[in-house]
């Protein structure tokens, strides 16, 4: 067991290192902006005095390395700075910029909403895709297998917004079953929140189910040629039991990996879907901030997305090690 802990710790350290380097990349990218934050905040009405004052207020007169560690140190403690839009607003109203909403305060509730959406999606998509994958492996090369193959391939290759608008058209406009706008607010009870986020969750489900289902099918079919499956068949147990009790446990490693990778994909997919459904999540905030060039928010969202992405990839790695004895005892 010692070696497993060591491998996992190694992966964790590697993940942290990646995150650290990614944060440097994001910081450098943001510093490639022409001019600096101060000019960007003030835009057209930048007077030298105002620029100098904001520059000092944000600590832009310090060297980049100091600024990077200030930003990183703040980010680790949950302080992501204050957004430009807020700072700009504060400078117009004459109030103190620091008393405006901070990026962290803006992001926190939206992050919860996005996690809720991802959670609902995963709760629908994972069981459905494993179930369909097992069925497709069981009835491989039948009409059912081919039909699901074509359908999933089509749904994975369509853009998210196409799926979203088709679902809106049929489930919301023509048959008013589900709301097409997910106006979620604090203090909403769970069932209402679930109904409002069901349509975006269904869209995301369509987008991620395909790969998970195809992987489940392929992983199981790969195993079906092995001698122990032959043995199980010769014992005379039903094809369904051969797959569920004999093939599926051994196919778990690739399936877990692909599930984690698809949950990581959800992070990207969530951006477009949140915009379509006006879902108050972090993706929508990200896009809005990109449009108005609100750099601190963009930077923070980017860091959060990257962290979640790295974390999910890391857990895929760790889980596939844990579920595979051959990886647990490397030669």
């Amino acid at each position, binding site marked *: 067991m010692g070696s497993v802990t060591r491998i996992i710790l190694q992966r964790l350290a590697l993940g942290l290192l990646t995150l650290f380097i990614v944060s440097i*990349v994001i910081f450098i990218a943001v510093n490639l902006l022409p001019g600096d934050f101060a000019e960007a905040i003030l835009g057209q009405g930048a007077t030298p005095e105002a620029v100098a004052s904001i520059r000092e207020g944000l600590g832009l007169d310090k060297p980049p390395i100091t600024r990077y560690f200030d930003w990183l140190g703040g980010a680790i403690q949950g302080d992501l700075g204050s957004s430009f839009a807020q700072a700009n607003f504060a400078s117009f109203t004459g109030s103190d910029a620091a008393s405006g909403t901070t990026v962290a305060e803006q992001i926190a509730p939206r992050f919860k909403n996005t996690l809720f959406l991802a959670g609902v999606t995963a709760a629908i998509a994972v069981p459905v895709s494993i179930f369909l994958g097992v069925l497709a492996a069981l009835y491989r090369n039948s009409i059912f297998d081919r039909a699901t193959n074509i359908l999933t391939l089509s749904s994975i290759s369509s853009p998210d917004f196409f799926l979203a608008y088709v679902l809106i058209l049929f489930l919301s406009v023509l048959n008013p079953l589900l709301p097409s706008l997910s106006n979620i607010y604090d203090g909403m009870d769970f069932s209402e929140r679930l109904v409002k986020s069901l349509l975006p969750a269904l869209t995301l489900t369509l987008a991620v189910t395909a790969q998970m289902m195809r992987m489940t099918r392929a992983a199981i079919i790969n195993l079906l040629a092995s001698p122990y499956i032959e043995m199980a068949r010769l014992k005379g147990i039903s094809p369904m039991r051969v797959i569920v009790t004999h093939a599926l446990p051994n196919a778990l490693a690739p399936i877990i990996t692909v599930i984690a990778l698809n949950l990581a994909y959800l992070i990207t997919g969530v951006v477009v879907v949140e915009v379509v459904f006006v879902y108050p999540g972090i993706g929508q905030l990200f896009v809005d901030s990109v449009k108005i060039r609100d750099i601190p928010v963009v930077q923070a969202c980017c860091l959060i997305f990257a962290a979640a992405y*790295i974390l999910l990839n890391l857990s895929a790695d760790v889980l596939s090690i844990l579920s595979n004895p051959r990886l647990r005892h490397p030669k």
Partner: protein
Amino acid sequence: MSTWLSILIAFPVMAGVAWVFRFAGRSATSNKPFFRDMPFGVAFGYVVAAVAILLAFKIYFVDQVLFFRWAMQGLIIFTVSAFLFRLLGRLVGTAGSRKLFRSMPLTAAFGVMIVLAYAILAIFAPVFAPYGEEQVFAAANTLPGSDPATGGDPAHLLGTDQIGRDLMSRLIYGARNTVGIAFATTCLAFFIGGSLGFLAATIGGWLDQVLSRAVDVLMAIPALIFALLLMTIASAWSVKLGIPLTIFMILIIAIIDSTRVYRLARAVGVNIVVMDYIEAAKLRGEGLTYLIFREILPNATAPLLAEFGLRFCFVFLTIASLSFLGVGIQPPLADWGTMVRDLAQFINFAQFSPLTAALPILAAGAIALLTVAVNFIVDWMLQKSSGLKE
């Protein structure tokens, strides 16, 4: 909520029908193997499929839901034309192409047909489009259907947008812009990623280490998120330098996607570099260019070609998503992603003016159709090259 309840009730009912169906089949055919060995799940599947088909007929003929009818008609037209296209390919052409068409499943034929159609549409866009993409007409906001009584205009089949540009023309020019830009971006990504990947594989050592670690870091950031971050910065630069944002977008997406190409090219290249013929070429004293272009590249075409298809889809979808979010291809260039965003509100009028509501779906569907087609081709190529697994 009664709809949900009836769906919930329908399942046990269908299960009962399935049992009866199997039982009746066994009795009527005196236990023919087809019914005798039928698991309950399969019987249930038949019943579900039958119900689905009946429901489709009901929606088509009884409820007459217009969108469903269009979707079904589209499906039938596409299937038939793909079948005819495959038939044509089997009869006309060289021996090689005829053989290719004979081994082709219908989905792949459909893919080839659509890709060809898009290519023709993109190249000859000015011939097909009734007007120019930036031509502004006095009649703004006319509805599709070319019937003046319902707010249409006979001169504009699909109507005009909010500033009076012909939507039909913009849809056709969109093929040229969206597909053309995506194609150029993919080619650039392949050029960068492919050459760096092969270089890393051939030279190895520190170059390989540096490039691979850099690619690892870039790949740790989700592609769309990274693209959006860089686009924020690029938009500031494009204002300052006066270079169109679209150029920046091509460069940014090409670089982000070249990391994925690099991975594949390096992985394929490393396997080829250890071959004896590479050793022989090295002993002959061939240079690096010869090794990469004459020895490695020809042996790596098959996986790279399949990757090109997939990569094109990713790039195409990323560009469409960026445009949809408003930071991709910039107006006045006609582009499908932007069109979907601009027309999206019309979807709420589906009850009153189905044609208008179909506009955003049409633009989004144009994107979906091409990616589905390319994916069908790639799927077929991969299956062909992987041989006949079970």
